[in-house]
């Protein structure tokens, strides 16, 4: 029976961490994929970071081989980072090359530290979700493949984080990433009348962000097609209004400039730059080439330590669209709530 909570703090910490808990004084990046932490006791801890499959989806078979590697190189412990990388903590300095070679043999690239592409994060998409408008794991696989050099080399102006979500629910935390894709629906949600009995209608009406759902006689609702913003809020609350989407209507939006840290211009949510691109599995060429053009424009023009959002803040959106050659659309300007006018420009400080 549940009720025990998480395992005790010490249970899963490696010995080198227990010895130096809270005593670290500095860190450096000796080479891509390797981080060195120095403790005040003089001990140095080397961490090797390896990329994992998109969505951190891993079979028990592969996971057992990772366990074997962890047993062999770092006393039987490993960790998973916030960005779904696998970290081997406390690797002896003289065995780092051996570990990297071993990981390469297993098909795990080492990198994603300092000024490079950090591993991608995404939601489950078509793998296991009924709301997905696209398949972020497959897109992230294609993107990682395309940006392999950026992952394994410190060759970018600052760190680059790429995420993917299959729908507006944003489970892949797209709005927090430098560059991200979000699946978008363009169809109205269905209303399966026979299932409406099981739904809490006042709730379904109240969750709609734009008030597009309204009662229509007893036990029945209707959707105002002019108002619908195709978010899956009603499909989440009510089985009668799921699934939303269709093969023709679904697609991908691209957002840029999210950031969590308080350095630079401070935390920011990502902004929509491309409202729709079609779904073209298995490689999504339109999406990957749009991401490529943003990465290229940023890495060629940004200053050191300037994240994508900060670079855009400096050069402005006019120059951003000029440098990336992305198509413009009126859809990128909001018109859905009271804050809409914030998205229009209120000064004439243009760049030409």
């Amino acid at each position, binding site marked *: 029976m549940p009720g025990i*909570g998480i395992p005790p*703090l010490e249970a899963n910490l490696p010995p080198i961490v227990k010895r130096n808990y809270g005593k670290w004084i500095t860190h450096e990046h000796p080479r891509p994929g390797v981080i060195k932490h120095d403790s005040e006791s003089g001990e140095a801890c080397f961490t090797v970071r390896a990329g994992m499959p998109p969505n951190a989806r891993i079979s028990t078979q592969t996971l057992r081989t990772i366990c074997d590697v962890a047993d062999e190189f770092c006393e039987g412990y490993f960790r998973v980072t916030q960005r779904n990388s696998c970290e081997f903590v406390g690797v002896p300095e003289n065995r780092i090359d051996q570990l990297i070679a071993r990981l390469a043999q297993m098909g795990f*690239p080492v990198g994603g530290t300092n000024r490079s592409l950090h591993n991608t994060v995404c939601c489950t998409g078509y793998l296991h979700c009924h709301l997905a408008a696209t398949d972020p794991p497959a897109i992230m696989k294609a993107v990682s493949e395309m940006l392999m050099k950026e992952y394994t080399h410190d060759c970018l102006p600052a760190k680059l984080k790429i995420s993917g979500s299959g729908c*507006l629910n944003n489970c892949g935390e797209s709005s927090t990433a430098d560059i991200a894709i979000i699946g978008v629906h363009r169809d109205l949600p269905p209303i399966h009348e026979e299932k409406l009995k099981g739904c809490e209608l006042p709730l379904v009406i109240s969750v709609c962000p734009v008030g597009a759902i309204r009662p229509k006689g007893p036990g029945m609702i209707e959707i105002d097609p002019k108002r619908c913003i195709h978010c899956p809020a009603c499909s989440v609350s009510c089985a009668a209004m799921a699934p939303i989407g269709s093969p023709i209507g679904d697609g991908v939006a691209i957002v840029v400039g999210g950031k969590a840290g308080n350095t630079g211009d401070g935390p920011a949510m*990502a902004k929509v730059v491309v409202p729709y691109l079609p779904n073209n599995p298995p490689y999504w060429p339109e999406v990957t080439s749009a991401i490529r053009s943003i990465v290229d424009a940023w890495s060629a023009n940004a200053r050191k330590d300037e994240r994508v959002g900060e670079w855009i803040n400096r050069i402005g959106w006019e120059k951003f669209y000029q440098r990336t050659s992305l198509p413009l659309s009126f859809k990128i300007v909001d018109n859905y709530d009271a804050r809409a006018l914030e998205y229009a420009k209120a000064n004439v400080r243009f760049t030409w």
Partner: protein
Amino acid sequence: MEKIQLCCAKCGFVVEEYTANELAEIPRKVKRYEYLLKKSSICPSCLASGRLKELRATEQADVAGPKVQVSASTPAPVGHEEHADSPTPMMDAISQGSWPSHAAELKKTRYPLQMYEQALQKRATQWGYGGYVSLPGVATGVLVRSSARPDITKGSNFVRIMDPCGNFFKTDGMRKLCDIADKYAYGLLHLLSTGGDLEMLGIPTENLKPAVDEIVQLGFDVGSTGDDFRTSEECIGPAKCDLPLYDTLGFRAAWYKRFLDDVQYPRFPHKVKCKFSGCPNDCVRGGQKADIFVCGVFRDLPVIDQSNVKTWVENGGDIGTVCTRCPGGCLNWDPKTGLSIDGDSCLRCMYCINKIPGVRPGGDRGVAILVGGKLRGKYGPMLAKVVVPFMKAVPPDYKEVFDMIEKITEVYDEHARKKERMGDFLLRIGPNEFFRLIGVPLSPRLFAQPRTNLYYHWEPEEIKDERVSATEPIQGPN
């Protein structure tokens, strides 16, 4: 030993159990007991809504649990042999290349491959409606997913396992977890979901209870579904970082000790996510994702070790970039006198501390509490807003901080509408009303900027006669 049970009036599902001693001695338990007794809630087992019934039992007699009633769907056993050999051209394409592939991983498991393959070919997901279910004694942690393609698979349940501190795993525990996944499920793990859980996919309904029992025996626990506290996430903190301003791992462990009841029993208007970052670098992205975000902060200036900085500069450290990119514009490097900081404009943003080895955070450390971050909700992505700019985090029980978290959730619970995230609630009632309800002292650090309009409301009792008395002579401006 007398036991007091709170159970569903309709099906008898035991929601919570207390011993008589607990209710006599622990005020927190009493409060919770009274709260649950008063509140109309939905039974996690039969989904009937209503008030809970109190039941007193003197023996440890096991009340027979009701049968599992799955609301959304009844999933089928794992794997369907007839589709095992069907071609998977799309997945084969995704399996190629030098980056590790999830499609290749799926092929090593009993996941119904055609569900994914058909989705890619048809450009539409093949899964159906899903939701959270409960088992007797397991109120949260179990999810069902029905299938829109019953010819391939009938559905798939999964459980959410709360990850250990710092996401560190010991290999022997992980191997045993793999054994459970092989025995009961597809043999496929989602090693870290963005919510901070480990997910085990594809458990047939009849195996859910034994699987959860085995997971719990192993020392892990399930939870984090429904309208409760979701799994909290912490940054790596003192375990492997030189910057944290409080012990995030210890904080999270203490948080679970205090709030485990609320993690494993849904009672809020909507989910509440708590995230803990050790410093303003915010590696868990709590300022964007968390309804309640506890961030380490310091109040005095960064401490500079001049000789260390000098060595770094001599070895090629790029001090020029750091000085120009400082957001407060307060860093100044002089080769003779060293590095100096202009205290008036320092934002404590961590940039110089991140980049220069000789600069460390100051010693006056504590935490800030921000609320209302979210990525979706009614009004889209929203950044968390400061509610408490500074508070001391005192181990081992962090009472002051946790009391504030409890206060925030109480206000949220009482005033928010159903399925309204904290950020939407904050937007609806406005920050000044929220601050008043929580009772935080006024501080300029709570505001980004003052308003531009003057459309505010005065209550009659706020109006006092502040005019100079007519009998006194009015002082002129000389």
